[in-house]
């Protein structure tokens, strides 16, 4: 098949700026092939490379005696004592959810669950933080319905209890809804699995669902600002298959028990490309892939399509060759595809062959290490103006108005569509403050909360960032939990605008100061930028997901107010 010529238009369509393309030419010393261009665009887009945010993320406190693994892997890992660890992360699926609310939200849940079980943890709790436009806006109803059904459709089938989340409405989200999904799992602390490959000549194994042309170019889209041409950029949206995901989880955890797994990485954005590069890069190895062995759902797929496909419910592993038969048996038991698609090599190369033909031949370590990193200009958010006189209204009328506002009204309509009790360990379902699940078979429990108040962050990013963390801290302590650690999902507008970048920088500063003061380090997270439509950005929304531990379920502070109880106000 004739591959397209590399033209400026093609380069632009891959979301690469002219100077970024010049960097590519310099790194490889020649013009890239079509497949190589695709690989670079996937590795270097904002979503995978964090090119605008990396500099600032590095300033966040990420360590502490409780932290087993901080940011940099699929999810953070935190010690909960007795040889066990909680593994958690939060991730956004904002743009896909706006285009296809059900499937976009569903695959967002799928992605975060995979991040957790890839590390060897069985998911035990989930949360979802949602921001929508005004209730009266013509798209809102359909988005709310679709997103909530999608989250439920996926999570309920997979079988993880939803214990919390947020739902807010504000006109700033009219053109960009936010769907942030959190998942936490439980693992033995000495059996955590990482992505770094080791050993030369080890089989690289593909597991899970077959590869289709889903979302080819999707990672590039997730980092692009929306405008009226959105219709044209629409890629094939992925359809989630929670039943396959559930089997993939069971098979992965079972396989880990056999001792066959050297390293493992889920295929998320820009699937095969990102996962293979990450395993090689972290392990200081090269990787060769023979794409004809990739299980394919469609005919005549090209190397380019396979390298960029975002088909869901797939994993890449490096296996001990002597245990291959055992591994294969586990996957056959669960009726999943299993194929050896390549091997680790000693040379620092990312070598992609398709039916023996070289489709890409790059220096592997350069793919991520040379990714552009920007120190984008930023402007501190000016101090907010004093509010006008607070209008005087009757307190009861005020209370009524608050209760009637969609932002403060009860959210049963949402969380009753989620299975909040599966696994039979939910000690506190959503409703008030933090949710809680017991650590199965022990007296302990884990509490979860997700918080941010975007209008505070807009008014003062530093204080708003602190406030989000403080609120999370209070939600955990209020149920009797000891706050352990935090994940964050930083949703902002276009970082190329200094005032937006200023919100980002300020919020990170505030979050960093607060998590340091409260000893709840950031162990994982996700950044979603370019949440803008026609130049209209969202409110800065750095969602904080926090986890706390109760050493004994007797310590749970209940929320049932009874006659005879005394009410106290604590604090200023």
């Amino acid at each position, binding site marked *: 098949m004739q591959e397209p010529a590399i033209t400026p238009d093609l380069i632009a369509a891959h979301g690469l700026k002219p100077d970024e393309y010049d960097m590519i030419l310099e790194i490889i010393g020649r013009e890239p092939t079509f497949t190589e261009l695709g690989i670079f665009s996937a590795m270097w887009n904002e979503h995978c490379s964090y090119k605008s945010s990396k500099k600032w993320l590095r300033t966040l406190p990420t360590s502490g005696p409780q932290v087993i693994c901080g940011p940099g892997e699929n999810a953070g890992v935190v010690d909960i004592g007795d040889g066990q660890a909680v593994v958690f992360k939060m991730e956004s699926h904002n743009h896909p959810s706006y285009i296809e609310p059900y499937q976009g939200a569903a695959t967002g849940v799928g992605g975060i669950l995979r991040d957790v079980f890839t590390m060897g943890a069985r998911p035990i709790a989930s949360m979802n933080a949602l921001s929508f436009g005004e209730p009266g806006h013509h798209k809102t109803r359909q988005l709310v319905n679709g997103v909530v059904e999608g989250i439920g459709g996926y999570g309920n089938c997979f*079988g993880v209890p939803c214990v919390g989340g947020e739902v807010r409405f504000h006109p700033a989200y009219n053109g960009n809804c936010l769907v942030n999904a959190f998942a936490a799992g439980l693992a033995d602390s000495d059996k955590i699995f990482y992505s770094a490959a080791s050993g030369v000549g080890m089989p690289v194994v593909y597991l899970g669902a077959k590869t289709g042309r889903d979302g080819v170019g999707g990672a590039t889209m997730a980092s692009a600002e929306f405008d009226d041409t959105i219709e044209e950029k629409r890629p094939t949206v992925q359809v989630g298959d929670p039943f396959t995901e559930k089997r993939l989880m069971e098979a992965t955890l079972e396989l880990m028990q056999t001792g066959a797994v050297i390293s493992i990485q889920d295929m998320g954005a820009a699937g095969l490309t990102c996962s293979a590069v990450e395993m090689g890069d972290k392990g200081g190895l090269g990787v060769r892939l023979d794409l004809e062995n990739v299980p394919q759902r469609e005919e005549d797929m090209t190397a380019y399509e396979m390298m960029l496909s975002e088909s869901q419910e797939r994993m890449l592993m490096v296996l001990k060759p002597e245990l291959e038969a055992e591994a294969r048996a586990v996957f056959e038991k*669960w009726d999943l595809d299993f194929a050896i698609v390549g091997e680790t090599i000693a040379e620092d190369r990312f070598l992609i062959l398709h039916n023996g033909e070289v489709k890409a031949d790059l220096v592997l370590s350069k793919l991520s290490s040379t990714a552009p990193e920007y120190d984008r200009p930023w402007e501190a958010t000016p101090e907010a103006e004093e509010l006008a006189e607070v209008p005087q209204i009757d307190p009861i009328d005020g209370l009524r108005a608050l209760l009637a506002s969609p932002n403060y009204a009860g959210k049963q309509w949402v969380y009753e569509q989620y299975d909040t009790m599966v696994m*039979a360990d939910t000690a506190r379902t959503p409703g008030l403050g933090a949710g809680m699940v017991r650590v199965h078979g022990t007296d302990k429990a884990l509490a979860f909360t997700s918080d941010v108040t975007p209008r505070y962050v807009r008014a003062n990013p530093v204080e708003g960032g602190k406030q989000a963390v403080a609120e999370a801290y209070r939600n955990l302590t209020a149920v009797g939990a000891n706050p352990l650690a935090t994940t964050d999902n930083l949703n902002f507008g276009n970082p190329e605008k200094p005032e937006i970048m200023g919100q980002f920088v300020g919020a990170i500063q505030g979050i960093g100061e607060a998590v340091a003061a409260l000893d709840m380090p950031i162990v994982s997270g996700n950044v979603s930028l370019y949440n803008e439509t026609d130049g209209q950005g969202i409110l800065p929304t750095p969602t904080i997901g926090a986890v706390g531990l109760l050493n004994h379920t007797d310590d749970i502070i209940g929320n049932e107010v009874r006659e005879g109880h005394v009410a106290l106000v604590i604090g200023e």
Partner: protein
Amino acid sequence: MRAAVIVFPGSNCDRDLAVAFEQAGFQVDMVWHKDAALPEGVDIVGVPGGFSYGDYLRCGAIAAQSPICKAVVDHTKRGGYAIGVCNGFQILTETGILPGALLRNAGLKYICRTVGLKVETSDSAFTEGYNAGDVIGIPIAHHDGNYFADDATLAKLQDQDRVAFTYTENPNGSVGDIAGIVSENRRVLGMMPHPERAADDGHGGTDGTALFRALSGVLAPA
């Protein structure tokens, strides 16, 4: 006293049901859906909640065709005990072990919450720990729990006192508010609500405990 809990690839309440059985004194075998036979000496089969085969096509339809379901059908034909909860109830109707079918909830939404159930009969191994007329709180969690049976079937269920539980406030459109029914020999129970989620006071309450206890009373070796 032995219980077998069937495990389909998409079951997700299998462990929960096993825990509830164990707490009531049963020894539990987990039985894989590809197995063609139940273990020897099983007193009761539990078909758990979840999404057996993703609930694609119709809830429980594909599961009903699995090898293990043939064995479950044989077991019940021999007069063996079985309980199907939620997806398990859907599977029992799809295999024809229990009459009727479960349709999409009338409100079209998945619903997870604790609901009031009225015990309609205490005349079964499952319900003899309650008094007819008792109202208990048991969680539901389903998308397709809208029980349907034609008029003749319905009349028969009522005449034979086979409605085990009804909803005090019908959440899903079920005909006659039916939440659970028993088989003609009263040894098979299918119900949409999850008694195993209400068998522990740290989670979901304890109104379901009496069901498992009654079973262990009936099935304990003399």
